């Protein structure tokens, strides 16, 4: 009895397969569905006889019936869909798999954020924690505490937005150095990304507000050699293992010795091109050993502690990396631009 029913089911499956394959139109598929699987269809006919089976036999035949039902129903569905899409496109009665898939909108981070995150990750591996500083600063923190008297020409290096007497929009992320050191004792290793403000109208290479990223490491025994090694390590990881680093003397009131850091031009590889003005080098950051007077200003013992600090412009780095010719593109937030770079 069991064998007989299973054989019937198998025969039904075989016939059904052939019939579905031979269906010439959507209506044929529907007719077959009723005939094979419908309430009065052939499968139901077989199942009516289940009642004649014992309790042990029933599940065996039932399972087989379910399998056959599933198989046939999938075949019918597939055939249905083929006719449906053929009807939609008016074309051949089969699925055209060269048509594009159904996409979702793709989100993405701003290119500057991507660069900031990448820099922070590298410094995270070098032991630096990511912190934040206020964008509204007192002139005391923005200048004086960083060894920059307001009546000194060094203060002219930044054109400053004033909010009120003695209160400015920070011109650099460096005031966070003083704030961090006043709050914590060494060892200090932090990076501080954030927006800074300069009173420069928008043009191809200037923006009144742009991203900067500060770094600070302070402890006993930190030397110029640690400083150079840390920065070079960052450069190799960020710009690639072949990237060379060059340290040039410079001047920042809050570091001494101070250095500009150049990286070998990524476009020409160091031979000189228009992107690097023929020098083979691209300037990427200002840096140096923390000035002892900054330590004094925050209550650290300059005889005991040494350290280094650096600051760079992720926007400029993004521009170099992606070949963005005009800084304004970073702030227009044109969807087409953002989609390109995310």
């Amino acid at each position: 009895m069991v064998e007989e029913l299973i054989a019937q089911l198998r025969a039904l499956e075989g016939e059904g397969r052939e019939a579905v394959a031979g269906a010439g139109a959507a209506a044929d598929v529907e007719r077959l569905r009723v005939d094979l699987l419908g309430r009065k269809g052939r499968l139901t006919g077989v199942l009516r006889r289940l009642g004649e089976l014992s309790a042990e036999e029933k599940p065996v035949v039932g399972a087989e019936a379910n399998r056959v039902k599933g198989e046939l129903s999938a075949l019918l569905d597939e055939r249905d869909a083929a006719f449906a899409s053929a009807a939609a496109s008016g074309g051949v009665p089969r699925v055209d798999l060269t048509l594009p898939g159904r996409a979702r909108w793709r989100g993405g981070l701003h290119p500057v954020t991507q660069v900031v995150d990448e820099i922070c990750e590298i410094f995270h591996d070098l032991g630096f924690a990511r912190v934040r500083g206020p964008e509204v600063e007192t002139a005391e923190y923005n200048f004086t505490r960083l060894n920059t008297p307001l009546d000194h020409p060094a203060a002219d290096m930044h054109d400053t937005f004033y909010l009120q007497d003695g209160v400015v929009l920070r011109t650099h992320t460096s005031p966070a150095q003083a704030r961090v050191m006043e709050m914590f004792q060494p060892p200090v290793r932090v990076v501080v990304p954030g927006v800074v403000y300069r009173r420069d109208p928008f043009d191809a290479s200037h923006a009144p507000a742009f991203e900067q990223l500060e770094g600070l490491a302070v402890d006993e025994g930190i030397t110029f050699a640690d400083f150079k090694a840390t920065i070079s390590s960052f450069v190799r990881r960020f710009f690639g293992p072949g990237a060379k680093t060059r340290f040039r003397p410079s001047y920042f009131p809050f570091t001494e010795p101070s250095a500009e850091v150049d990286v070998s031009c990524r476009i020409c590889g160091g031979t000189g091109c228009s992107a690097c003005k023929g020098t083979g080098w691209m300037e990427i950051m200002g840096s140096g050993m923390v000035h002892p007077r900054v330590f004094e200003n925050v209550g650290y013992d300059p005889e005991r502690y040494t350290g280094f600090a650096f600051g760079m412009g992720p926007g400029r780095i993004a521009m170099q990396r992606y070949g963005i010719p005009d800084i304004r593109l970073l702030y227009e937030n044109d969807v087409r631009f953002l989609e390109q770079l995310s």
Partner: protein
Amino acid sequence: MNISYRWLKSLVPTLEGSPRELAERLAMLGAPVDEVVDLGAEIGGVLIARVTEVRPHPNADKLRVCTVDAGTGEPLQVVCGAPNVEAGRLYPFAPVGATLPGGLQIKTARLRGEASEGMLCSARELGLGRDHAGLMTLAGEWAPGTSFRDALGLDDARLVVDVTPNRSELLSHVGIAREAAPGGRADVRLPDFPGGSAVSVDAKPAAENGEAAGVRLSIEDVDGCPRYLAAVIRGVRVAPSPEWLATRLRAVGLRPINNVVDSTNYVLHELGQPLHAFDLAKLAGPEIRVCRAAAGETFVTLDGVERTLEATDLMIADGERSVAIAGVMGGQNSEVGDGTTDVLLECALFDARSVRKTSRRLGLSTDASYRFERGVDPEGMPLALARVAALIVAVAGGAVVGAVDLNPRPFRRRVVELRPERVAKVLGVALPGAEIAALLDAIGFEVEDAGASPLRVSVPGYRPDVEGEIDLVEEVARRRGYDSFPEALGPFRPTEIPQDPSVAVERKVRDVFLRWGFLEARTAAFSPVAENAVPLLNPLSQEEGFLRTTLAPGLLRRVEHNFAHGVRDVRLFQVGTVFFPAADGGVPREELRLAAVFSGASRPPHWSGPAPALDTWDLKGLLDEVARLFPAGSVQPGGAWDLDAVTAEGERFALLSDGSVVGGGGAVDAKSIDAPAWAGTVYALEARLPERVPDVRGVKYAALPTFPASERDLALLVPDSVPSADVETAVRESAGALLEAVFPFDLYAGKGVPEGTRSVGFRLRFRAADRTVTDADVDQAADRVLRALEERHGVRRR
């Protein structure tokens, strides 16, 4: 600072390498060169030619026809429009085939019918200055056909050096020479001027008051002017400078004026000491006083501008009136001009802060003020005076008849102690005292005893920036070369400074918006809106006059930008800072916020059918998602918080956390965005950034169900006055303990549904933890629910 390569080489005969190699060396010494300008390359084809004859042009009043001897043996006919062309004189001449700066190629031409074979040139046409009033006249004698560039020494290079504000001494050729010379200061010399020799200026030492050749001098403000040297030269003949001097000045970008003024400018650029020449005949007294201005006094400076002074401005006055703003600019009333025969030369030291204050207030930055602000070498002043006197005598004649050196506060060199062990501690390399001493000595520092510790280092007057030990450490590192120090990462202790909590929050926020297909935007924090906003004292424009108090408007401007470029599908988000005035008028308060704007289709176009537009329900879904980042966050219909002003009434939501409003969102109203007709509705949302990420440490695992659930759909006729949320609440409260979930799955109003009601389909899911839910369980629960709905809200089954 512009440096002429030729000029520099005249000071350092041992200088080797091309201008570009020099630029590279300077960069590595801390004086990067922004640009190397090849001078003279563009005028390589220009010759010196003599105009032998000048005739009127037959067809033009303002043109002349000249015969020119360019050394070719053949006289050339050249048409010239310059008023100053004179037969017999030498002029620069661009023959046919030559090119001029700007790429002008000289060709044979006919001007108003007359042939012209070449062009006689003005200084401006040669790129040698602004003078376009007439042809450039040449003071000197050369054979026609001589290369103009070679004759005038114009094959030079200008190095535009970027001098940092601490290094005032690099604002001079001698300063750069000292750095660049292979042997340092020992290689630098000051050559005699062509046609001149060193002049002895015997400046009589004095304190505040003195006298030179009958001129009384006094310093009334020693703080503002600690030293003032003056020399009187009588019998000068003011005239254009000789070509060598004019060429040097042009090479550094200056316009020659006359031989006396040019001499002062020359020595300023050579030694870095600002100098000024007064016409002695115009000084009342004759007398010179260094004093403060009278408040409100007006004074006309050399540039012809009348300036109003304050009582803190340091001035130079004669017996009756002001004659110069000290350290900034001289006055018209005592200017050296063509009729001048006697001059008084000023070589002074003015207080940096005082000059800076005056210069900034007047908006007048000059070569002199720029140097005084950064510090002028008090030790180099007698040399500078002697040098300029010698130059004037060489190029303008006359003789030094008297000089005085008012020096009421003599300069004393600073002595800085430098511990070699400190050098090692900072630089990581132990250097012997002798090496340190040699490095410092090359640029003018003097070390008493190279074997001592600490080293006692005396600082030359031209290095006012060197105040402490660390400044010397930098000098040692710089002169030795940063490249010479190793890169070695030592072991370091990990910091225990925690990451700022906002970093993790921001990451969560980004995750939400990236999942929803949003692009991150960055906008500047300026806004035109004054209400409850922090004003900028010096904004770039009125449109940027305040700091923003909300993020969404800035993002809406970006939507407009995209619409204007034909982009209709826009989804932008931002995490940024907003600012509020402090209640006590103190430092403004900052707040971190998140915001998003969107418009357009819910997904990219697809052939299978149109994508629905993003709408209110996407906004609410997104807000729900954001609400999950807040403690007890929820979204409710109502006001849109800070977005009330830009959103339309009706489709608005408030975002709540622990019962207080922390954000909102809505459809942007038409007046708040400039959108083209084809654009879809724009939605905006904004919220405070949560202080920290939701704490998941308290979350515990709930066992997954082992028994099947049973579902029941109820189609309910809900009166329009009853919100579906109330229906849902009633269902929850009445369905009993087996209810696992309830949610609306269908909404219908119209045909077949009584007026004043709508049909809402709710799906209820029941489950028991310990058994299979029976039909009877579900029937009973449904009955309870329907009874409760009827009683509370008049809701019946459809």
